[in-house]
């Protein structure tokens, strides 16, 4: 067993990390020379990982172009090596790598576009949540509203960006080539599973801010206080509108009362 394990380790180092020499000794130099055998498998590895990333990030691939995307994929496979025989979650860290590569460049929007694309992947892989039960919500005593604790739907995500991230995504779909003004300001988008599709719904900044507070697990009363503190004195946050936005975008999955109380 040790000899098999050691041989497999030499293959891994040759195919992924380019350490060819030790493996060459293990291979038959016949119809295909050993050095060519290794190149075929190195090429297969690069193509497998590039393909897996391209399937999850078609907009990033289009934005950076084929050659650059290949370079990114190559760095990714080395920095974030696969730890599963199932590639469905392989690309999870690409937004992190893009942030590292492009933070202080004119392409600093790329990590947010990648986060949007990855959120689309994630919601496809989970069961669709039922929408928030508005009837049950209507039965809550208004005096208890500050104690309401909303929980994000497991089949929805929020991506907030200081860039027009949804406009960038939309303008880079196949057969679309609409210019985007990168200085157009921030955009916030709720990504949710909707049957066999994924829905992208833009929400206002106040709704996104409220959603971020809700995500921390604090009750609505505290979230409103916190929101009021960060809002300019002459602009009262429209909480009802923000909650309505988040509900219709299907970001909110359910609610609880804190401290626990009956809903009737």
């Amino acid at each position, binding site marked *: *067993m040790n000899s098999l394990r050691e041989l497999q380790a030499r293959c891994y180092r040759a195919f992924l990390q380019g350490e060819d020499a030790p493996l060459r000794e293990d291979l*038959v130099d016949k119809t295909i020379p050993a050095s*060519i*055998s290794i190149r075929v*498998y190195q090429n297969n590895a690069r193509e497998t990982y590039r393909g897996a990333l391209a399937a999850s990030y078609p907009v990033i691939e289009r934005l950076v172009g084929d050659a650059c995307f290949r370079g990114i994929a190559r760095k990714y496979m080395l920095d974030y090596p*696969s730890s599963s025989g199932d590639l469905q979650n392989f690309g999870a860290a690409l937004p992190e790598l893009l942030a590292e590569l492009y933070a202080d460049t004119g392409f600093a929007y790329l990590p947010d576009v990648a986060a949007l694309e990855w959120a689309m992947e994630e919601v496809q*892989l989970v069961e669709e949540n039922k929408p928030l039960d508005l009837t049950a919500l209507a039965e809550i005593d208004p005096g208890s509203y500050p104690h309401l604790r909303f929980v994000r739907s497991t089949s929805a995500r929020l991506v907030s960006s200081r860039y027009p991230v949804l406009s960038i995504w939309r303008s880079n779909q196949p057969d679309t080539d609409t210019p985007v003004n990168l200085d157009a300001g921030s955009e916030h988008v709720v990504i949710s599973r909707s049957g066999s599709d994924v829905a992208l719904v833009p929400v206002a900044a106040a709704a996104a801010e409220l959603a971020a507070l809700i995500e921390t697990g604090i009750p609505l009363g505290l979230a409103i206080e916190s929101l009021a503190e960060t809002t300019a004195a002459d602009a009262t946050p429209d909480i009802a509108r923000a909650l309505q936005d988040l509900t219709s975008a299907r970001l909110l999955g359910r609610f609880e009362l804190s401290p626990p109380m009956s809903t009737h």
Partner: protein
Amino acid sequence: MAVSDNLERPGPIPAAAGIGLRGPYHAEFISDSPEAAWLEAHSENFFAPGSIALTALERIRENYPVSLHGVGLSIGSADPIARDHLENLAELVERVQPGLVSEHLCWGSVGGYHLNDLLPLPYTEEALAHMVERIGQVQDRLGRKILIENVSSYMEFRNSTIPEWEFLASVAASSGCGILLDVNNIFVSARNHGFDPLEYLDAIPADKIEEIHLAGHSEQLFDDHSVLVDTHNAPVCAEVWTLYETLLSRIGPRPTLIEWDSELPPLTVLLEEAGKAQKLMDRAHELAA
């Protein structure tokens, strides 16, 4: 109670030509129910409970016999079997109740890191005992026989002492698994390593072959060296059709799958390829009668 217990579903995989079920075809199979004898799905694409893909597969399963074909279990690795992967597979098998379950004669991980490739083993007594033991683990957990498929290869190990075809036959004999014989993979490896594909075909016991794969490959140049690579992006080539016909004449019809995984054509192209395989099987039936 598993979902599968409640449903009337098409039964076992017939000795007929099926096609690989890939994501872009899901909607067409759900809405139009095109005529196909059976479908094969890549197990790993359906591991996530409640996912869009699994929901689609369950709907499609109501109308078609389905087999599950794994590409990531890495049975031949010296690493322990990835328990989470095997549990995901077991759960999927329970849910889908496939006619056949298959994996590969290969390895793909070491030290917990994966290459996500179907890498050939050294054909040694050590590797043979290892494969037999590992297939036993998988069959025990799934509570059923699995099929093992030969892979295309682009390297040969110096320490191999057993021809691949004898290794595969021995794995099946000792583990009780069946064989999924990929004729394209035999052709690709034969061309790359200079062996006779007919010798390979003849060495595999007929009663062990429970499924056949047919696929396209591509020729790639590395410096001046031409290598056939199993890319599954093209029609089945003439030589592979001939080998398939030869195999059928010896063993008779078997469930046969047209695999196409990249640069996917319209579904009709796959169905036409399956039609060619079906004609050859029908002819084999007539000759055997």
